[in-house]
């Protein structure tokens, strides 16, 4: 599903974020990416949907070589990848329904299919009855569920979550994790960057630890391994 070989990233301002990453993730896996702030987690994650381009090395996602990919092809790569952020990135003026439908409009789906699919995913994240609300009227956990609904609306093979519980209280975090596990159970690969020790140590999955731009640990059913 994802393959990185000897990947380096140096930003224009001279900061080196990745120092030769080698790793592979298979389809259907659930992977935590952990590590101290500024260790390169975000860069690592952003490379997968090509928000950041590698300076050196090869990255393959869905058998597509991202290092050789043209700008024009990037949108089509992203249609196979759902992304969930810590700050939700919902559009404040649109309703819950419109926020999710937005992702499908881009694909030029028929209105009938869009309506059906939006209601299906909202049902999945338990927000069917709040379809007409705008994001400000929802709690943080509900907003994150909307953003998850938007991310999976398009049946992506891969879901990337960048600290999805970072802004949420513990109880809400568990709800989000439950939804992510359900999505994973349907065969969607999930990569989740997190700082939550409780989550990583309770819901045991594969753990990739990144420090100073390198993979320093990669174990199945791993521990969080950091204090705080």
């Amino acid at each position: 599903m994802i393959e990185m070989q000897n990947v380096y990233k140096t930003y224009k301002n001279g900061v080196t974020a990745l120092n030769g990453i080698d790793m592979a993730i298979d389809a259907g896996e659930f992977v935590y990416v952990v590590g101290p702030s500024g260790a390169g987690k975000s860069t690592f994650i952003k490379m997968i949907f090509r928000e950041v381009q590698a300076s050196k090395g090869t990255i393959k996602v869905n058998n597509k070589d991202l290092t050789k990919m043209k700008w024009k092809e990037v949108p089509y790569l992203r249609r196979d990848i759902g992304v969930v952020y810590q700050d939700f990135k919902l559009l404040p003026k649109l309703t819950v329904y419109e926020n999710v439908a937005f992702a499908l409009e881009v694909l030029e789906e028929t209105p009938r299919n869009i309506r059906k699919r939006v209601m299906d995913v909202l049902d999945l994240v338990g927000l069917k009855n709040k379809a007409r609300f705008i994001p400000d009227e929802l709690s943080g956990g509900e907003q994150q569920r909307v953003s998850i609904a938007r991310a999976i609306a398009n049946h992506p093979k891969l879901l990337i979550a960048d600290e999805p519980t970072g802004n949420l209280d513990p109880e809400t975090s568990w709800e989000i994790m439950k939804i992510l596990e359900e999505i994973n159970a349907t065969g969607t690969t999930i990569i989740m960057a997190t700082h939550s020790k409780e989550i990583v140590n309770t819901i045991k999955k594969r753990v990739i630890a990144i420090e100073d731009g390198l993979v320093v640990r990669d174990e199945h059913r791993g521990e969080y391994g950091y204090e705080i």
Partner: protein
Amino acid sequence: MAMKFRTFKRHFREGAKNIWRNSWMTVASVGAVTTTLILVGAFLALMLNLNHVADNLEKDVQIKAFVDLTADESETEKISEEIEEIPEVSSIDFATKEEELESLMESMGDDAWGLYDQDNPLNNAYIIKTTDPQDAIRVAGEIEEIDNIESVSYGEDVVQNLFQFNEYARNVGLVLILALVFTAIFLISNTIKITIMARSKEIGVMKLVGATNWFIRWPFFVEGLLLGVLGSIIPIIILLTGYYYLDNNMAEMSQFSFIELLPFSPFAWQLALLVLVIGATIGVWGSVMSVRKFLKV
């Protein structure tokens, strides 16, 4: 690039919606287009009319070749054959010295020239026109070389100054119009840039879910087009009424009677259409240009 009709409708709807959503930006952009187009339109009207007057003056440029007094009929005939061989010549007329005198008497009055009636001192002459008035100077030179031509006149000083003036006027006008159009594009793209700044989050999310650049660009394209068209309404009204008034009153003012304006129809309508097209282009360009930098994410 084939686009589904559904998608086309969506882009149009979104573009039109944005006009309402960002109403004060719309006012600012439309204001910028309106101001520019009034100036551009007035300039165009002035330029095209100047051009028209200049063309008319140029068309009047003719060469008069005076035949030697000693030339007999066959020699005179031969001159016309030689003149006709010059490729740039479009027409050639012969005026006998009697006709020449008559036209002189007409313009100067019988008294002064009447006494020459019996003993005409004038020459027979050929009156020549060239296809392109600009060639007149060169052709006049060639005709002067022909045997039995006494002299050639084409109003040397006036003609040369006229050509030069026309060329300056055309170039200066073109530069001014282009400068105005670019200023407008700059103004509009800046105005729109501020709205797009506020919408950069929206564009970011669209990119995130895999929207192609053109999918994002089209609503802005439509928005720019509408802004441009809205901005050209007032200039068109001003131009049409202004020109109508001018066209009707110019002829009555005797001091301007020698200036012949382009007729209101079709000229004013063509000008209105041109202003509309320029407005739409400015709007689209300004809008699409300012989205550009947000697309590289």
